[in-house]
């Protein structure tokens, strides 16, 4: 039997939940997520967020998730956890989701929002499959969701915001952070996040990378090496650092399988984190039933993910019901523009400008 809703949302991260909050009470909505808990990345974010009041600045990620889940439920939205969406089937116009018992469910919407987030990029080096080597996000999940210390002494590769924040959370969990390395000449993340770990005694070494992992059947040490201006290792600068944990945080890539499978056009936009579904400023993809929001549309932040979720929701609402969404959507556009200013906003801003051009090429 096919379950029917006005809007089917895949992904209960900040983008999906913010969309559900707008749509709930107006139309029937179902949110599907493969994880046992709703909230996406938010639930493991124990640090305080940036942004402004409207974007929950100063709140911890986990508290934002709790608030949004409450609001969404209060508005009668159906949240289905442990429902992994396997694909969208255009002929029948429905998605198929597999629940925790392996049972398949057919779910149809008049509109779909795929807010599937991002996954961590892996890094190639000798022995990178030794136990004790994690993506920074995976290590964060172990610590903050399951209360498990993934190791006692860590080397972090990547000084972007995620590498810096996860390092700080590791200090809070009582893990010794030996050092943070980054191949670039400068720290990628915010200075304030870097300063927190540095004054706790953790050195950040730019222009350094991991050469190989050392250990018999689990990680025992990491060989690091300095890089020259051309990013090539400098012979003789190798050092062995004892560690039972190595975390990789060198970037994220949008999760786009569902879009690709559904036949949405995909393009490569480096400023957005790689391959992303083509979308216009209303977050509509080249399939007019399918919308995108959040990291799946380009790697950014929870704050922008929520605004994009709201924009997609308002656009869907405008398509589904005869309501005037113009003022509300303009407000959200302004909000996005504000968030994408300054030194750190320049990449996503440029990426989204390129995306608008691509979208018009596809007639969006």
């Amino acid at each position: 039997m096919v379950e029917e809703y006005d809007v089917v949302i895949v992904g209960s991260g900040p983008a999906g939940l913010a969309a559900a909050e707008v749509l709930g009470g107006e139309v029937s909505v179902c949110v599907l997520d493969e994880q046992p808990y709703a909230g996406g990345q938010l639930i493991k974010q124990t640090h305080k967020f940036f942004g402004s009041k409207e974007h929950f600045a100063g709140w911890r990620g986990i508290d934002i998730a709790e608030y949004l889940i409450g609001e969404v439920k209060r508005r009668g939205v159906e949240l289905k956890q442990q429902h992994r969406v396997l694909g969208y089937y255009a002929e029948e116009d429905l998605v198929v989701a597999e629940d925790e018992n392996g049972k398949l469910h057919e779910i149809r919407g008049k509109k779909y929002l795929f807010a599937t987030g991002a996954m961590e990029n892996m890094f190639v080096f000798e022995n990178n499959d030794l136990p004790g080597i994690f993506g920074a996000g995976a290590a964060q999940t172990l610590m903050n969701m399951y209360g498990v210390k993934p190791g006692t002494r860590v080397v972090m590769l990547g000084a972007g915001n995620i590498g810096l924040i996860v390092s700080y959370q590791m200090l809070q969990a009582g893990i010794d952070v030996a050092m943070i390395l980054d191949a670039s000449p400068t720290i990628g993340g915010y200075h304030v996040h870097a300063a927190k770990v540095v004054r706790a005694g953790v050195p950040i070494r730019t222009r350094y990378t991991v050469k190989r992992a050392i250990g018999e059947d689990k990680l025992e040490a990491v060989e690091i090496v300095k890089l020259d201006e051309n990013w090539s290792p400098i012979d003789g600068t190798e050092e062995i650092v004892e560690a039972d944990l190595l975390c990789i945080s060198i970037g994220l890539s949008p999760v786009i399988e569902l879009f690709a499978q559904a036949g949405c056009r995909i393009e490569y936009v480096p400023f957005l984190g790689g391959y992303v579904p083509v979308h216009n400023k209303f977050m509509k993809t080249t399939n007019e039933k399918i919308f995108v929001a959040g990291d799946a549309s380009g790697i950014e932040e929870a704050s922008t993910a929520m605004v994009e979720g709201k924009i997609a929701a308002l656009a869907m609402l405008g398509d589904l019901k005869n309501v005037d969404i113009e003022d509300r959507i303009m407000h959200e556009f302004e909000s996005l523009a504000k968030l994408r200013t300054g030194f750190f906003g320049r990449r996503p801003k440029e990426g989204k400008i390129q995306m608008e051009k691509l979208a018009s090429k596809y007639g969006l």
Partner: protein
Amino acid sequence: MNTPWRKDGILDNSVVSKLLPPEELRNSKAYALLECVENIPCDPCTRACPFKAITMEHITDLPQINWDRCTGCALCVMACPGLAIFIIDETTDPAKVTVPYEMLPLPEVGEEVKLLSRRGEVIGKGKVLKLKVSKNKTYAVTVEVPRERVHDVRAIRCIK
């Protein structure tokens, strides 16, 4: 923009000296010091201050502080997600520094703790004078600091 801190995460004296209030004010009362030097999309400090001492026109602007309004109450210290605000009181000897703190164990008033520099070096010990906590669970810990170290101490570590 000249951004030497983006190499190692450390603000050196040439940067910090530009963030300090005029000497006259420093000698007259405790003041908030905002070690926030990048145009990041963030503004909770402006909302935290009950005296509207911190302002910002645009979310990615640097926060501006009007020290005449600042009472050194430390509400902004606990609100700032960057943990970038400190209260400095160099009117007394020893001086006092209030730092944000989110680690365990929690120090107790009267306890000796290690004093750390921006580089994370232990540069002495000091007594905890005060402990405040906000509802978002960031503590503001006030410690006694030798006067000549008041512009170096930016973190603490418990000894126990």
